[in-house]
């Protein structure tokens, strides 16, 4: 049983300091900082995000997505055929993203996240998990003015992102996560989703994580277990119904269980986490479990996010001790 995170992490410290990233962006926008200087600051803040995760004791980390404008733009702006439109609300959050619009044939032209993965791996004592926003979510949060159908739009994105997964694998990624929160809102389109997932991971041998959040997978479980992924991530906070859903059929893969509420500041107690872990171990054995927050931590102020990470590790370790005690 290991601990991990879903992906993003706060870019700025708590008040009153504006933080070096925010100051740098402001200066960059005023033309007082070059792009290279801004990237330098982003690297520094990435190292801090890595350090926070390492200090907390998280086993499998990410780079905190410090360089992501948002989960869509980061990928869409470097794929051919997509333009970036105005702001839209990100699911049921008060966070906004820029809408990607398909205006021509979508194609992968260059590695998008490989440099960032390599940078994080080089500077992290712990294994690093690159994350790619999945084609289904990109399509659902985007707009299609080019393809004759939504299905063709999703599949074009899947083929393009397959090249990104292959590039990450070639760069040495042993585990790659694909985020598909939109699945929870569009389960009726599961056949297209499954088709897109097959195209997305074609020829990718690295360990693959399919991560869902902001809802449950009732209605597409246990079909989900047939998809070509090794790990399935489920949100047990917004998707508390997942407890009932996974009781319906044996969970045959590794489960990344999102137990800590990534969208509320209330800090879970060690006992709450222990309780959730004990409950899940009656369904999935510990060696097929990853314990995580319910979503990326950037919904929280920095101080709270850091405390949640510490509590995640503390609670999971306490649960492991108890389980060992039970077996001994």
């Amino acid at each position, binding site marked *: 049983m290991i601990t991990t995170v879903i992906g993003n992490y706060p870019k700025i410290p*708590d*008040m009153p300091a504006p933080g070096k990233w925010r100051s740098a962006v402001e200066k960059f926008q005023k033309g007082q900082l070059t792009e290279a200087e801004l990237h330098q600051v982003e690297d520094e803040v990435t190292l801090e995000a890595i350090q926070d995760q390492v200090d907390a004791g998280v086993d499998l980390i990410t780079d905190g997505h410090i360089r992501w*404008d948002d989960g869509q733009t980061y990928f869409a702006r470097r794929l051919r055929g997509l333009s970036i439109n105005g702001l839209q609300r990100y699911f049921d959050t008060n*966070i906004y993203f*820029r809408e990607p619009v398909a205006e021509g044939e979508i194609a992968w032209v260059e590695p998008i996240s490989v440099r960032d993965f390599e940078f994080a791996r080089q500077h992290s004592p712990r294994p690093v998990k690159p994350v790619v926003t999945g084609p289904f979510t990109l399509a659902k949060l985007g707009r299609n003015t080019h393809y004759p159908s939504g299905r063709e739009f999703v599949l074009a994105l899947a083929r393009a992102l397959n090249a990104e997964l292959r590039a990450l694998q070639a760069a040495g990624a042993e585990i790659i996560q694909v985020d598909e929160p939109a699945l929870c809102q569009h389960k009726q389109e599961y056949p297209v989703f499954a088709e897109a997932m097959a195209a997305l991971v074609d020829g990718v041998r690295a360990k693959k994580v399919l991560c869902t959040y902001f809802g449950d997978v009732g209605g597409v479980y246990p079909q989900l277990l047939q998809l070509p992924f090794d790990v399935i991530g489920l949100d047990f906070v917004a998707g508390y119904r997942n407890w009932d859903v996974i009781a319906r059929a044996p969970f045959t893969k590794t489960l990344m269980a999102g137990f800590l509420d990534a969208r*509320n500041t209330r800090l879970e107690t060690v006992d709450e986490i222990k309780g959730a872990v004990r409950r899940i171990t009656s369904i999935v054995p510990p060696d097929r479990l990853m314990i995580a927050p319910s979503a990326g931590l950037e919904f929280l*102020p920095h101080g709270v996010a850091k405390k949640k990470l510490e509590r995640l590790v503390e609670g999971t370790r306490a649960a492991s001790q108890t389980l060992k005690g039970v077996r001994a």
Partner: protein
Amino acid sequence: MSLPLLPTTAVGSYPKPASLIEARRKFARKHLSKDELTELERRATREWIQIQEDAGMDLLVDGEQYRGDMVAYFADEMEGFAIAGLVRSYGNRYYPKPVVVGPVGRRHPVTVEWFKYAQSLTSRPVKGMLTGPYTIAEWSFNEHYPTRRELVLELARAIHQEVMDLQHAGAKYIQIDEPAIHTRPEEDFALAVEAMDIVTDGVSAYTVSHICYGDVPKIYPAMLKLAVNQLDLALKNEEFALLETFKKAPFTKDIGLGVVDAHSHRVESVEEIAEGIRRTLQVIPAKQIFISPDCGLKTRMTEETVGKLRNMVEATKLVRNELTGTREHGNAATRVR
């Protein structure tokens, strides 16, 4: 204070002058007293009242020069909230997201003094401006209430008291902003309706709810159940696509028709705005329509804001003349047939 056909109004916020932004920074660092800050906020409020009068608007707003964020402002002034820290909204924009840490409620009236001040500056009616309970709850963290429902309904009771106080202070028009109301349409819309029932219970003032960003078609026609006289909506940012939705079921309330985009730098032309109003008239009768920008204009430059307001008023006069066959002040554009 009767309003003309197609009354012109605004959603709430206007940009703050640079001197006020600087003063707010100084105040945050305790380099400026509360009184000094208030004086600058009052000056900015006077300027915006003047600008709105000069533009020829009918139903004014105070411009919210004294607010940072529409939720944090109420959280700061009410019982039960703390500020957790900054949370990203988009890009490098952050907002101080409140946390509910105890029972919520009013310590004292929140907006009444500002309403009275703004109304004292003009003979035209000024709207009382509140943030609704669903939005305050949705845009706060909750560490206290076991369920969202309990928090929303408790906030609804507090905002109801504020509505009654505004009415008592002479407000004839009261707006309750609920931009987050369609966050979870399937799960929560009934709760949002129940909350608004509480907020406007027994109120005789004319009530408005501004709703923006998000999937309005998903809550239409259910949104017509909200206990307010008018729903104020952003039509322009999607080029009046919502009119198709309104054709499916009659729009039974008044509409605050957003005719200029609040998030573009471009000042729409008089003719372009007039065309939007004319298109709407084919779907909703004129007597049900108020003319407004899409949303609060606080993120626009002052010149852009003034340009948009002026053209909005001119376009409205143009269409009004087409409807009534009369000319206002003798300077309205010649009718085009």
